[in-house]
């Protein structure tokens, strides 16, 4: 019990003093996850919007696959990206394995289905309401997608936040494609896993607290966005 108290005390000290090692890991994690979420959002918005509006053979299957991929196990995504980026893989020549870029790619694979599926749902709900009005105006399919994405903006923000929550907390994929290399590809989650196994509870605990704070912040942001949208009838 005393050990745990001490570890907790040290963890708080690491946070309060903005320990450089801790800060480096947190910043790398944020950089990787924010970049991945930004890329995944661009792809997810376009994909989700298009799936809601365009009619083509296989649309239903694609939508079902996308929904299923929302629950894609990160280790599987990591393995998939590993195979693509390994020396013998199709993109091996790029030498991206064990770099932050590889981790970004893996997280894009994990987050894109989440953003796309939530975007599709948001756009379909809106389309049900707007369909006749937009067709009466003579809007093109591309214009309809644009209208739905803009009008669903607050739901899209929640989709992005959900994607970010998933990316920042994910450990399996970044471990496989990043290799957990100190000062290069070590993120909060992989450090927690490693340091705990080494018995260095303090650093793991400090990172755990930071992760929890981020999770709470994302949740608070989600609730604020929903409340704002509902209050001003934008939901």
């Amino acid at each position, binding site marked *: 019990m005393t050990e745990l108290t001490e570890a907790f005390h040290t963890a708080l000290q690491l946070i309060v003093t903005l320990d450089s090692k801790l800060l480096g890991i947190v910043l790398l994690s944020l950089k990787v996850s924010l970049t991945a979420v930004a890329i995944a959002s661009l792809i997810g918005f376009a994909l989700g919007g298009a799936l809601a509006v365009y009619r083509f053979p296989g649309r239903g299957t694609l939508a079902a696959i996308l929904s299923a991929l929302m629950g894609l196990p990160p280790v599987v995504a990591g393995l998939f990206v590993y195979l693509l980026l390994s020396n013998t893989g199709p993109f091996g020549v790029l030498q991206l394995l064990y770099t932050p870029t590889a981790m970004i790619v893996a997280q894009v694979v994990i987050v894109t289905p989440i953003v796309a599926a939530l975007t599709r749902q948001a756009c379909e709900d809106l389309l049900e309401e707007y369909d006749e009005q*937009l067709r*009466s105006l003579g809007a093109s399919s591309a214009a309809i997608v644009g209208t739905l994405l803009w*009008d669903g903006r607050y739901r899209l923000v929640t989709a992005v936040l959900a994607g970010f929550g998933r990316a920042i907390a994910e450990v399996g994929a970044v471990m496989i494609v990043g290799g957990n290399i100190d000062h290069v590809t070590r993120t909060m989650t992989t450090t927690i896993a490693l340091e705990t196994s080494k018995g260095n509870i303090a650093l793991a605990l400090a990172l755990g607290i930071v992760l929890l704070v981020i999770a709470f912040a994302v949740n608070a942001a989600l609730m604020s966005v929903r409340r704002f949208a509902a209050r001003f009838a*934008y939901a």
Partner: protein
Amino acid sequence: MLDPTASPRAFTTALAGRGGLLPLELRRLTYEANGKRVIDNVDLALQQPGITVIMGPNGAGKSVLLRLMHGLIAPTRGEILWAGRRMDREIALRQAMVFQKPVLLRRSAAANIRHALGVRGIDKGERAIRVDGALKLAGLEGRAAMPARVLSGGEQQRLCLARALSLEPEVLFLDEPTASVDPASTLAIERLLIEAQHRGIKIIVVTHDVGQARRLAQDVVFLHHGQVVEHGLAKRFFTEPRSEAARCFLAGGLVL
């Protein structure tokens, strides 16, 4: 630009310059859904400008007929001709529609009108002028920046009408536009419609409100079981309805 504040004659002349869309002819028009014939072999010709009211009991197919005319749904059989031409994109862009339940985007009142004008390809400078004009027309100039969906039901429907009129359509369709609005907004909407028809816009409105039909209609199409039972001048329809169904409907009876 067709200025909605211009004199009726100037506006009508501008519309005529585009070549009118009338007559509207429906030839053996049939629409079936889920094995049920909703519109049954309808032949109809609307030649005159002004306000045509489509009436009939619930389930007669009024809203479906309106959507067929506007091209929102395709007929199962038969054809729809506007000035002898089949419906195409160019014709559709010369029309507008207001729905029973106001369909408003999750944006401000002004942005709703701006969006519609943008979709129709109106340039930015003219968009701003038309937005101001439309809001003024609907008495909503003080509500321009408000989220459209927090407006009252009557204001929302007035905004929908203002948005439709800002497109300067040659034909305006309305599906029960005052079914769920307050009397003051009903009056405002009816005034806007009368003003619009004076400007040369052909108006086709579905209503089950006999009082409203009497106030607005120049001619009436009475629909029953998906068939046009009567079509004629409003005056005659209200004083001497020819069909039993119309007589019963006007007397407030249940039309089976």
